[in-house]
């Protein structure tokens, strides 16, 4: 399960950025507040760094009203494509897994 979480987390990041640019803290807080993801906030920063190196996201510094400048992340065209590919695959994958899990549950009910 933890491997599955880790593998899908980067697409969760891309999905959040599809709605618009966000700065690191904002992005990290939003993800960590999703209970099911169970992610430590600090481990998202290395992931962001990797996405930037893979050219799926870009960063820019922008002034903030409350403190030092913030590093904003935004999606590149390559990131948008990667997200679209993943979304297609994920829906099929999820449906198959759901179908198999539900099949198993029904099996258990019959046994009782």
């Amino acid at each position, binding site marked *: 399960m933890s491997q599955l979480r880790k593998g899908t987390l980067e697409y969760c990041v891309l999905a959040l950025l599809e709605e618009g640019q966000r700065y690191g803290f904002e992005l990290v807080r939003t993800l960590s507040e999703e209970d099911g993801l169970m992610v*430590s906030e600090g481990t998202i920063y290395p992931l962001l760094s990797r996405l930037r190196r893979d050219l799926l996201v870009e960063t820019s510094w922008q002034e903030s009203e409350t403190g030092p400048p913030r590093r904003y992340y935004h999606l590149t065209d390559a990131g948008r494509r990667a997200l679209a590919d993943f979304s297609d695959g994920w829906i099929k994958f999820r449906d198959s897994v759901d179908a198999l899990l539900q099949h198993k549950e029904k099996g258990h009910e019959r046994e009782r």
Partner: protein
Amino acid sequence: MNVNADPLVEDYLRHLEAVASGLPEYRREELLAEIRAHLDEALRQVPAGDETAVRSVLDRLGSPEEIVAAAAEPMPAGQFAYVPPTNGLAIASLLFGIFWFGGIGSVAALVLGYRARREIRKSAGGQRGSSLATIGIVLGWIGIALLVIAAVAAFVLLAATATTSGSPTTG
């Protein structure tokens, strides 16, 4: 609230720096800058001295080991590693540090070295060469020390010759 004001946070950052020392320089600098910015942002919403709240911010962040493990994971095969450019001032600082130029090089090495380190820190992983700048700075200080020693030696020598040449007339 300042990140560096809280002993818990200071401990955490020291620990993180120690654990992260095995990462490549530019990845480490970037990670530390991001974590510092995160803490800065998170702690601004926390009343000063509220230890429980500070602990919860650090808990949510995760252990330094966990974070560094995530940063150290190898990249998937077939992808090239992005290597950020080296800061030009850092290289210049090193060269000036090596070529002493009668002390002028040392001053230049120091000025450029400190400026390079500031720029590299500000780039948060976008530039490398912090160790080059540090070597330039060290060489710069050595050069200045040599200059001072040479000046003192020359002065002492001059004073000694002055007294020896002056003694027959006074004595």
